[in-house]
């Protein structure tokens, strides 16, 4: 199963040298690395804001920062983490690197567009970082009007421009993936032989190209009202503030699925490789991704149950929110069932997958609370919601991202990461995460509103627990940074297929050559065909 690395120095990293060869590259693998560097910067920047938030909340009084500063901190934390880390995280790095490799293609369909999307991302990021450093913005990442369009005295327009610009990079990436997956699959790689990672990226791309234009236009409208007093959202001008919420959540709810679907794709790959079995109910899991993408567009109003929205609209949005929960639940059951009678191994990536399954399950189940109309009226805009979406977007998406990064690290860099510190990081992050965010469920139900700089004293014990957890979590996130860098120089050289995994990306060298494959792979078997598939009917649900 494990073959020795063929002696071959001509890989995508060593093929060209010099900074120019990176900044002008059209190789999807190099662009993935450019994205990796950029989003790692944003992750630690957003993380730094989170640390400051947690430090302020250690005591009930707002004593560490001014209110203005605190409001800017949580705003920048949200904006950086969502628009500049989570949305691009898996698709732009692992997706960019792996989509062509997994389908046996030489590159994405539009390599130059791919590079352009990175530059657009960087330009958008510069706008927002510039705004953060020189002025700050205090509207919350949700930019609710008329606060953002009329009342805030901070750098709303610059930040909104950053988000507007970055949206285009998301749209181009989605477009590139869809065209690539449709037109560039290797001979024999039919739709139902595709790895589930590809299915989830396909679903994600659909949301990116359909949803992102809406948030981009919404940001533009906020900017127009701010600068030119064009009456759109501010009732003093004749606008409607709730209109903004509809437009904003029309993208920003599906955006949650942009963050979580790719992570689900990663987990499917990790579970299959660790159990040496096809993912149980392959077709169900594949269609569940599409179902989540489609239903995800129909539930935005569940963010607005107390906004003054019609009671009947709320009723429909609540119902549809339960509909979208089912495919997610089904995925969790399928991953669990895959482990049944598997040949289960527990390298770091699988530990992260376990972390994903555990935290995503809690995040998903607490979604049932906030989708329940009667309960949401109480917990809306409290720490309960904060805890819920961090379980999904941090517990789920980042666990998936890190699991995938460990799993494909040997393929990306040609080096193995050290297993022991990696296992320690997975464990530390899991513990730290739960200690940080579980108390926030209780805090929220007790009634602590979100975005509070100071809070009543009875909430302090739970806040101290949360801050203690955050310090453990910060340590857990710093670890991979250290040993990944270490492995670049001192890590063991990786064979083409160190995990003995199935999938076209494992057929080529680690790291792959610029052209990905020396010869065009031909696919003759379904995904995850660990057992010889001739004569064995692979489960086809």
């Amino acid at each position, binding site marked *: 199963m494990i073959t020795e690395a063929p002696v071959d120095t001509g890989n995508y990293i060593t093929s060209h040298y010099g900074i120019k060869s990176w900044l002008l590259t059209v190789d999807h693998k190099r662009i993935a690395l450019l994205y990796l560097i950029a989003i790692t910067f944003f992750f630690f920047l957003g993380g730094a804001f989170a640390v400051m938030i947690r430090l302020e909340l250690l005591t009930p009084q707002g004593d560490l920062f001014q209110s203005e500063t605190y*409001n800017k901190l949580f705003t920048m934390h949200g904006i950086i983490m969502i628009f500049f880390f989570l949305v691009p995280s898996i698709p732009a790095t692992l997706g960019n690197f792996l989509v062509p490799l997994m389908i046996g293609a030489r590159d994405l369909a539009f390599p130059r567009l791919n590079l352009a999307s990175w530059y657009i991302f960087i330009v958008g990021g510069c706008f927002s970082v510039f705004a953060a450093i020189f002025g700050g913005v205090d509207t919350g990442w949700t930019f609710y009007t008329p606060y953002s369009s009329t009342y805030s005295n901070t750098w709303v327009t610059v930040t909104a421009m950053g988000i507007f610009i970055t949206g285009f990079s998301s749209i181009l990436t989605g477009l590139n993936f869809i065209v690539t997956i449709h037109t560039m699959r290797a001979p024999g790689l039919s739709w139902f032989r595709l790895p589930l990672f590809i299915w989830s990226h396909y679903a994600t791309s659909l949301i990116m190209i359909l949803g992102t234009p809406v948030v981009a236009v919404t940001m533009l409208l906020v900017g127009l009202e701010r600068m030119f007093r064009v009456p759109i959202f501010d009732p003093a001008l004749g606008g409607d503030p709730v209109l903004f919420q509809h437009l904003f959540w029309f993208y920003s709810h599906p955006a949650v699925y942009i963050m979580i679907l790719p992570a689900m794709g990663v987990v499917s790959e990790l579970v299959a490789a660790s159990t040496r079995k096809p993912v*149980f109910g392959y077709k169900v899991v594949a269609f569940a991704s599409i179902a989540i993408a489609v239903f995800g567009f129909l539930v935005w109003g569940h963010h607005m149950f107390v906004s*003054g929205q019609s009671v009947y609209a709320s009723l429909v949005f609540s119902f549809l929110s339960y509909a979208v929960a089912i495919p997610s639940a089904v995925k969790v059951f399928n991953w669990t069932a895959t482990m049944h009678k*598997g040949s289960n191994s527990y390298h770091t990536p699988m530990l992260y997958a376990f972390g994903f399954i555990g935290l995503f399950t809690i995040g998903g189940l607490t979604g049932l609370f906030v989708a329940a*109309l*009667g309960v949401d009226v109480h917990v809306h*805009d409290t720490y309960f919601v904060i805890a819920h979406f961090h379980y999904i977007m941090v517990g789920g998406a980042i666990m998936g991202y890190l699991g995938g990064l460990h799993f494909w690290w040997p393929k990306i860099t040609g080096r193995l990461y050290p297993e022991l510190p990696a296992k320690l990081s997975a464990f530390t992050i899991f513990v730290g995460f739960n200690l940080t965010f579980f108390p926030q469920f209780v805090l929220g139900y007790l009634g602590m509103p979100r975005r509070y*700089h100071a809070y009543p004293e009875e909430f302090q014990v*739970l806040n101290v627990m949360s801050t203690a957890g955050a310090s453990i979590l910060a340590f857990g996130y710093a670890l991979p940074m250290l040993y990944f860098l270490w492995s670049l120089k001192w890590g063991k050289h990786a064979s083409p297929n160190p995990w003995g995994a199935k999938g076209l990306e494992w057929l080529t060298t680690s790291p792959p050559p610029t052209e990905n494959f020396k010869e065009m792979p031909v696919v003759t078997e379904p995904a995850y065909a660990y057992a010889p598939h001739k004569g064995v009917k692979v489960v086809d649900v």
Partner: protein
Amino acid sequence: MGSRLPILPEQASTFAGQVDALYFFLVGISLFFSLLIAGLVAYFAVKYRRRSEHDPIPKPATGGTTLEIVWSVIPLLISMVIFVWGASIFFTINRPPDDALEIYVVAKQWMWKLQHRDGQREINELHIPMGRPVRLRMTSEDVIHSFYVPSFRTKQDVLPGRYTTMWFQPTKPGKYHLFCAEYCGTKHSGMIGWVYVLDPPEYQAWLSGGAGEGSLASRGEKLFQDLACTNCHKSDGSGRGPNLEGLFGKPIELEGGGKVTVDEAYLRESILSPQAKIAAGFQPIMPTFQGLVTEDQLLQLIEYIKSTGKKDEPAAQPAGKKKAAR
């Protein structure tokens, strides 16, 4: 909650028990499924662990259609139970009883201004009688705020430019947190206050304490004259504008067809944007009062127009504990 680490806020309204019951049901469901998944994962992880790299490749699972149906349908059924349960509570929360005590709320950065019909005004404090349903009619002078009383298990966004309402019925005397739950700018976390639920005798004492400026309606009446509304809206119907007496709650014909019921929203619109919906038979000659009347004054005018229909009710009770700061 006597323990040092409570898990529930005080149950102080008729909603609290209902919301908490569904909450605990959800906690139970969540515990069950979390433990089920965690248990199965742990069991499979130990039982089917790879002992060596030479372990045989496992056979792919066969069948599974039944399982897929079972684990799709069961969660769907459970979630439908939650949906219906949650919706029924929501309808209760959104359907105020007719006999509710009406109080007006004007939110602004960063304070709550509350006006009782009898004339008392409060800031960041609300005194209400035990056991009596209370309805709040709320608006904002600037951005969106949200009126949230955790012990009552309800909240409602407060929007500029329109009225939203919420109601609750306190079940336990005491002092409860009032929070602004919708981020509203710099001092968002300072936009807090207290709701005092008083036993009826104490409430009566509170009502009669302090000097007032007359009831909301009487202040509205004075405003109605000061703004010269009476020049056109004459009570004998001979004015250039419709006679407003007793009009509240009734449907009227609109110029150009259509009907509208005269409610708070229509009155507000007609004062601020008089041209929007003209009553049939009248000319669009009324000037706008946008910028001339504050949100508080709007509520007084509306309260006055409402009161004109009910001649037999005593319109004013001289009372009022606090003078508003502005």
